[in-house]
């Protein structure tokens, strides 16, 4: 992002954050759902799209963030509960990343699948922290002593966190570490040849991504006011991977578009099916559309919605290639 773009993004986000107070409760709910999902998707895109480490444990990491932040928040740690969620998830993410020192690609993906299963089991059984299957009830977030109760306030907080995440990540990818991520993604051998410490680079990707995912998890916990094992099962990991694939691997704006798509699509289908009074069928339709869309996207636009949008914009704004050549 150039300076001007950064300013535009900051401005738009601030306007959205301020404007979200004027929204209805339902609209505010949609806004924070999309914004929180986008934060998680940005973090996952850093790991998969930019560093090439396929992870199926996103859902469980969100859970770690939610449980940690929920417990800290209930204990009265104020805003630090959110940071605590981030730190806990970063630590667990680093632990999950340890096998990545030895494993690569597919084998590592299967290891993260195992991590997801083990964490789900722990959510159900470590009752002192997680309250088992019934779930942990979380009291509302307090911000420097002020209790945040309204959905509109959560919407604007989520937008601001999303903005900070975006700015941080797009700065990060321009640093030496960010460039190292890209080289590791392309080829670990080349990275080694260039003197990049591959293990350490991957570890940074896990820690940074984990921290952001934890914060997203904390926000999920505080907005839904309940953390139960079923909410953080494997299907959540799959949803997030779908977001970054539908949006575009290795594209920040793509993560945002993908998150909006995956969160709003089920809502839209549920709205359409509301008159039918057949909950199971509507749910089935929703899942069917979701599965089908993933497949169709992968076949016809593997670079995602972001790339599709870009090529459309180019088609309409630059009618001739001659003009483009003259301009440069």
């Amino acid at each position, binding site marked *: 992002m150039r300076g001007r773009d950064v300013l535009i993004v900051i401005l738009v986000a601030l306007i959205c954050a301020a404007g979200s107070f004027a929204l209805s409760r339902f609209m505010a709910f949609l806004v924070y759902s999309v914004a929180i999902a986008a934060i998680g998707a940005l973090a996952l895109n850093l790991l*998969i799209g930019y560093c090439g480490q*396929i992870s199926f444990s996103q859902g469980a990491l969100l859970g770690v963030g939610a449980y940690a932040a929920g417990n800290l928040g209930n204990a009265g740690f104020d805003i630090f509960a959110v940071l605590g969620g981030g730190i806990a998830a970063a630590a667990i993410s680093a632990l999950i990343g340890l*096998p990545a020192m*030895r*494993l690569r*690609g*597919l*084998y590592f*993906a*299967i*290891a993260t*699948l*195992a*991590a997801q*299963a*083990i964490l789900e*089991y722990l959510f*159900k*059984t470590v*009752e002192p922290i997680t309250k088992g299957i019934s779930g942990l009830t979380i009291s509302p977030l307090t911000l420097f002593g002020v209790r945040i109760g309204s959905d509109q306030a959560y919407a604007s907080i989520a937008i601001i966190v999303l903005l900070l995440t975006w700015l941080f990540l797009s700065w990060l990818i321009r640093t030496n570490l960010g460039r190292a991520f890209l080289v590791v993604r392309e080829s670990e*051998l080349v990275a080694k040849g260039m003197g990049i410490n591959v293990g350490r680079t991957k570890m940074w990707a896990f820690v940074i991504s984990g921290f952001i995912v934890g914060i997203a998890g904390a926000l999920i916990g505080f907005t839904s006011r309940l953390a139960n094992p079923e909410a953080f099962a*494997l299907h959540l990991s*799959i949803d997030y*991977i*779908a977001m970054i*694939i539908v949006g575009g*691997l290795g594209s920040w704006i793509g993560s945002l578009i993908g998150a909006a798509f995956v969160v709003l699509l089920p809502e839209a289908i549920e709205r359409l099916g509301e008159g039918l009074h057949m909950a*199971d*069928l509507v*749910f*089935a*339709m*929703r*899942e*069917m559309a*979701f*599965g*089908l*869309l*993933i*497949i169709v996207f*992968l*076949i016809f636009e*593997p670079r995602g919605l972001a790339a599709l949008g870009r090529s459309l914009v180019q088609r309409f704004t630059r009618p001739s290639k001659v003009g483009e050549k003259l301009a440069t």
Partner: protein
Amino acid sequence: MYLVQLLSAGIATGSIYALIAIGIVLIYKCSGVVNFAQGAYAMFGAYVTYALSKLGLPAVVAVLVSVVTMAALGVATEKFVLRPMLRAPVVAVMMATLGILIFAKAICLAIWGPDQIAFPKIFPEGSIEVGGIFMTYNYVAAGILSAILCAAFLGFYQFTSLGLMQRCAANNSKAALAIGIHVSNQISIAWGMSAALAGLGGTLLATLNGLSLGLETIGLVAFPVIVLGGLTSLGGAFIAGILLGVLEALTDGLLTPALEEFLRAYTNIYSIGALQQVVPYALLVLMLLVRPQGIFGQRGTERI
């Protein structure tokens, strides 16, 4: 005696795991794709068998028709979903198979609903007693049948000319093309066979545990199996399947009660939940750290 009982139950479920895992390994060897949709074929196969036998077809015919349908679906998946994605990155292909899984599950939900269904009796009811061990016919038949099928498939892969072509295509696709093997047809055949195996495995599993949408998780349970056996070894998948089945039975029957008793005596923890569901994954992580290529897999070499 209790131990032998557990062992035989473990071997029975383990050989069904093996049946499903062999399909995943077959596809991976042939096309380098990890198929998460294997559970979908298992679930769908079981539902189709149920629907056909409800129409009045005899059980054997229903199973056969369902297996053939699954094979056709497998070939169709390869042709319409996987073939257009030849150059796509690994994560995209994995995700496409996950998309198939989600889609298939949604279709089963739309047609048959979310509730557990009593599966039609394929094997006669009752149980047999061998040396003080009681086993229902279901378990015996499902275990023996899937073990025989696994062995038969391994034999087919090793000794017939189609098996030889399969191995050629999997081993070196360029060389296979050079000697006149139609590699993409072989890949289609591999998908068909593996979907058929999965459909059969799903049907057998449904005779043991009843029919529900939860059947698709078998596709995920198969992953510890194939990693343990080595992603590239069919025989390894067979042995690892039985090993994990036994391990699960032992965890459920011996380790969990013992651990819970210990914990109740010394702490205030009452239950440790379904430990048998995570033991395979713990073993998987351990295996990946110690010997990533599995017990029987080959260590891959990489061209620079």
